[in-house]
């Protein structure tokens, strides 16, 4: 049933607002919101176009893929702990690191952020009833699921899964060097999930541009949604290039073209240009949503507004803009790219990233900090990304890149930034918004165990990798010589990896306990400021039955704490309509 949605009518409360700040009361008389006789059970799930259902589906699917990829990582680490190990064959090893990287980057980090949490939260944050194109949203999820199954099915075909690294450089990825259906399935999976991402990008941009609630100007949109807008545009820039490259490679493999082969007059390095023009914005597509999550979390647990809101917006746009011009810093060692151009732009990305760091610190500065689980994970993100970001600046220098490229130094760098964002900040966002999505709390004590185990395991895993890379250990190697002297550091790294694995057990137990023995969350357990904390947990169908006036980026905070409302210089202070209690409620219709 297609519904046209009226804006929520606001009920004048008959009694004072409760501590969670929103009026008790019932719905008005909209029949569509009352008893939906829709499909039930699994048919309900398959036909749902509700962004909340789709977002949860994305999150569950991506977390399952995350665990699968994590198991692959553990196998890799066991193999590497012993230089003479033959736990897995060379072929299997190459498949494992290829699929570990592919699952993590294409199927977990991105989809969890923009398909999962953003899908759920962005319409709530901007005051929209749903995403702009609900059926397209649902299609995104089914393409993602189909693509994930397609990629994993590479393990079931003769010749095994793709084994050329998540970047699939030509000519290694052509039909001569990588025959077999596994590589073709990998390429096709990228086509499906690429379109899934493109459609989500369209939805995000359209929702944030056109479905904001009255009064929510662009500079009152929460930074998480701002970052999702910029991510959506980046997706539109990057993913079509990937699709084109994948089609070209498939044609080389099966239709007799010679785009990437020298013998046919082609240029192998063209693949790298195409791939990295996608690949570098891709890693910022992966990072920006997670930056946005912690940017929404720090103000809540500091009980202060975000420091430098406009600076954050400027920084996000700068990062996105610069990220499109640095792709060939992954190609410094090819000898055929313009080094100064890419080096300078890569260095410059450090500036807006630094602005973000100082704004996060400025948010906490002078605040009243409390360290519940979402805040702990956000702080963990800060430290992880600080070091990962600094080593990234080192890699922006071509001579330093020559000595570290394709060694474990780079592996450590990108794991620090990717885990800092998608895991630390990702769990921060998950723990933060879980009460809103499910109406119940996760246990904070289990969350703290989860955090500390992950934090310790994370540093133990990746600090040795920086060193062993500087000592000369290349990446993507299934074994090494005992005489290299790399064994001890590899053993440490493997122990750390298992500690990381163990940390997720706390998370799983937490989920199970919260389900079996729920603690009701209420509308706003963290005293958050975003609009999403104004509605019930979980939100009703089409999200809002009433809206507060929106005069800053923290409308719920302003409503609950009118004496501490967010005032930006140059903006007139809103005059309360009802002078007696200072709360502005608005009639509708």
């Amino acid at each position: 049933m297609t519904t046209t949605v009226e804006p929520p009518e606001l009920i004048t409360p008959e009694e004072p607002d409760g501590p969670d700040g929103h009026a008790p009361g019932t719905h008005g008389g909209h029949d569509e919101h009352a008893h939906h006789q829709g499909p039930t059970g699994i048919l309900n799930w398959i036909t749902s176009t509700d962004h909340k259902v789709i977002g949860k589906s994305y999150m569950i699917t991506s977390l399952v893929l995350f665990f699968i990829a994590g198991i692959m990582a553990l196998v890799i680490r066991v193999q590497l702990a012993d230089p003479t190990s033959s736990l897995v064959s060379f072929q299997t090893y190459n498949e494992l690191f290829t699929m570990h990287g592919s699952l993590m980057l294409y199927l977990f980090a991105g989809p969890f952020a923009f398909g999962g949490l953003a899908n759920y939260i962005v319409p709530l944050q901007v005051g929209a009833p749903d995403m702009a194109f609900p059926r397209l949203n649902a299609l995104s999820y089914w393409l993602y699921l189909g693509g994930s199954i397609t990629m994993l099915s590479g393990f079931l075909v003769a010749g095994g899964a793709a084994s050329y690294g998540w970047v699939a450089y030509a000519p290694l990825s052509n039909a001569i060097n990588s025959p077999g259906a596994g590589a073709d399935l990998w390429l096709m999976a990228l086509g499906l999930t690429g379109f899934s991402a493109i459609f989500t990008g369209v939805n995000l941009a359209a929702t944030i541009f056109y479905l904001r609630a009255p009064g929510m100007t662009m500079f009152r949109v929460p930074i998480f949604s701002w970052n999702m807008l910029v991510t959506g545009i980046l997706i539109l820039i990057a993913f079509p290039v990937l699709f084109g490259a994948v089609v070209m490679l498939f044609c080389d493999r099966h239709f007799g073209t010679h785009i990437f082969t020298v013998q046919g007059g082609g240029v192998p390095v063209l693949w790298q240009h195409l791939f990295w023009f996608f690949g570098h914005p891709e890693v910022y597509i992966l990072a920006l949503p997670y930056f946005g999550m912690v940017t929404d979390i720090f103000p809540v647990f500091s009980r202060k507004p975000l420091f430098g809101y406009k600076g954050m917006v400027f920084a996000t746009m700068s990062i996105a803009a610069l990220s499109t011009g640095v792709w060939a810093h992954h190609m410094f060692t090819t000898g055929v790219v313009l080094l100064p151009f890419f080096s300078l732009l890569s260095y410059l990305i450090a500036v807006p990233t630094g602005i973000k760091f100082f704004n996060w610190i400025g948010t906490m500065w002078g605040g009243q900090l409390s360290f519940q689980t979402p805040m702990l994970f956000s702080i963990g993100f800060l430290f992880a990304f600080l070091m990962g970001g600094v080593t990234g600046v080192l890699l922006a220098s071509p001579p330093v890149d020559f000595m570290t490229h394709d060694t474990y130094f780079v592996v450590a760098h990108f794991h620090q930034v990717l885990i800092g964002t998608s895991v630390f900040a990702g769990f921060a966002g998950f723990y933060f918004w879980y009460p809103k999505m499910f109406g119940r709390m996760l246990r904070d004590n289990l969350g703290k165990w989860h955090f500390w185990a992950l934090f310790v395991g994370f540093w133990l895993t990746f600090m040795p990798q920086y060193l062993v890379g500087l000592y000369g250990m290349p990446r993507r190697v299934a074994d090494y010589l005992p005489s290299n002297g790399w064994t001890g550091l590899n053993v440490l790294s493997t122990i750390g990896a298992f500690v990381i694995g163990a940390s997720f057990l706390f998370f799983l137990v937490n989920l199970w306990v919260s389900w079996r023995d729920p603690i009701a969350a209420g509308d706003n357990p963290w005293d958050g400021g975003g609009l999403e904390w104004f509605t019930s947990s979980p939100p009703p169908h089409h999200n809002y039955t009433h809206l507060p006036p929106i005069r800053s980026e923290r409308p719920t905070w302003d409503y609950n704490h009118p004496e501490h409302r967010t005032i930006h210089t140059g903006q007139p202070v809103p005059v309360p309509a009802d002078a007696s209690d200072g709360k502005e409620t608005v009639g509708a219709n």
Partner: protein
Amino acid sequence: MRVSAVFLAGTGIFFGVIGLVYWFTSYEDAGFLMLMGSALLGLLPGSYYLWWSYKMKPQPDDDPHAEVAEGAGAVDSFPGSSIWPFILGMGATFTVLTFVFGLWLAPLAAALILSAAIGVTVESRRGGTV
């Protein structure tokens, strides 16, 4: 609509400038063309939205003093439950599997895609599930 127009047109101009700088410093074809393509990505819709935005009245979401009541009326049309995204998604999946495993999958893929295309169109016209 002014906001999205400025965003997209600005993106287009940015890529145009960077693309030209890149071309005259490196003379490298692939990067230049991709940057120019990105410029078009911004300029084409951006210029169109910019032209449209001068014909539209200002929206309450861009008004810092807007009241909730100003957003009264239909917000948008939000299709409810629909099986067609699932069918189309499965059709796309089987289409790519046809490329990998052979033409014998093509009839199934085509059937799924065609029925989804028809179903979605009818659903939109009728305003209800088929």
